[in-house]
């Protein structure tokens, strides 16, 4: 299983939606880290996302763009992405963010970001 530790591999303060919001934004996370990792996965392999290591929390702008964005840019269908991702955290408060990420991914329609452009 491959792993992304958000706090260590990306930023201790992930914030913002678009690349122009800064290097810690959801779009940067998705394009520079998440999608390349997903490309490396074997067909039955999963990707573990460590949510709470050195991170205090997440805003929905970041989460929507980072995770639902994978579906919206047309990279992967929401059902397939949900099967590929697992989430881990020690702080139980982060269960809220896992639920939110899964909700945002489920609600996203494939390729909708391209259509809206």
């Amino acid at each position, binding site marked *: 299983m491959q792993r992304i530790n958000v706090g260590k591999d990306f930023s*201790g*303060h992930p*914030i*913002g*939606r678009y690349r122009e*919001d*800064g290097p*810690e934004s959801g779009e940067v996370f998705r394009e520079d880290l998440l999608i390349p990792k997903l490309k490396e996965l074997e067909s039955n392999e999963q990707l573990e996302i460590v949510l*709470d290591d050195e991170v*205090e*929390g*997440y*805003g*929905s*702008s*970041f989460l*929507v763009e980072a995770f*639902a964005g994978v579906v*919206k840019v047309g990279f992967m269908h929401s059902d397939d992405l949900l099967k590929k991702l697992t989430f881990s955290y020690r*702080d139980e*408060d*982060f269960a*809220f*963010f896992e639920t939110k990420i899964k*909700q*945002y991914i489920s*609600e*996203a*329609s494939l390729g*909708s*970001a391209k*259509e*809206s452009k």
Partner: protein
Amino acid sequence: MKKYTEKQRSRDVRRTVLQRKLGYKFYTRDSRGKKHKKEHLDKTINKRVDNLIEQGLEANINADRRVDLTLPETMNLSSHYDQTMRYINAIRSLSQNSRSRRYYRLASVKFHLLKEISSSAALLLTSELSRWDDSIRNNLSPQTQNWDPVIFEKFYSLGFFNLFRKAQVNPPKDSKESDVRFVKYIKGNHEDKDYRGLHIQLTKIIGEKVKKWPLLHGGLDEAITNVCHHAYPSTLQIREKDKNWYLTGAFNENTKELKIVFCDQGIGVPASLPTSKIWEKVLESIASVPAINRRKHATLLKAAMEVSRTSTDQTDRGKGLPDMKEFIRQRGAGYLALMSGYGLYKLTVGENGETHKTDTLNHPVEGTLIIWRVQL
């Protein structure tokens, strides 16, 4: 009758398209000449300040139209809202003009009568004075000799004196004058968004971590993202150094009450909504409101706060403001207050569930102020 020329028509089309895109208010402001705009603004300052003085603002106007403000005994947004905002708004207006002798401009703000100030009022006051200091090239210098010791201690712990390059202030001798412990305020902008020091400072004061903090962090992240996207639109010529946000926290050791206060000095939520991606959702949500109330700021705030969080629209935006409620909801008790323009939206969570309140304010919050209050 004159013939309607093609040139005239294309000019009108361009104007109306811009008006629809940016909102009439922004378009007209931007379309005027610089000189006309400045003069109009300066005249407005005089009118506004005269009005505020009629309403009870304590101000001494010198011969050259320099204004000394004397802060009142109490500044508190819950118990003395109108009085507090009169001074905050006066500072904002007066600090916009630092040169012209024809119009009022701020000379000094006196603190000697001030005996009590709430954390949200202190943050608003600090942010306005910081803005003023920035506009006069950091030339302010605080004179604290006759300040009340409680007020001095509060502002010292808030980090107020760090604002001023010229400040030479010694720490308070007895740091137990007040039950309320402030944490040093954090000032950020669209590039500097790091506020993680807030939780560290609060943990030190309280003695333990704040439960459900990650959800408050999520709400604060959204508040900051909103500032970057909407509060200071590029269509308005706002100086880069004025595009800031401010954040602080306060803990009352007696009542165990924790308050987190966030503010910006932008155009405010009601003014930013028409150009935001959630405007259509807001319009849908206020369709059932009587037409006369639809453009009331309180109505717009409520609609923005209650935009469906499970909406499956393609843009997926508009989840930011509702996110701010999660901290209070998950803790099960407390309130969230959002004030912007003339609107107030308040969510209270208690034993009887959730209650929402909206109200129209007599004096506007020029920007956005968000307060979370919980009992530890």
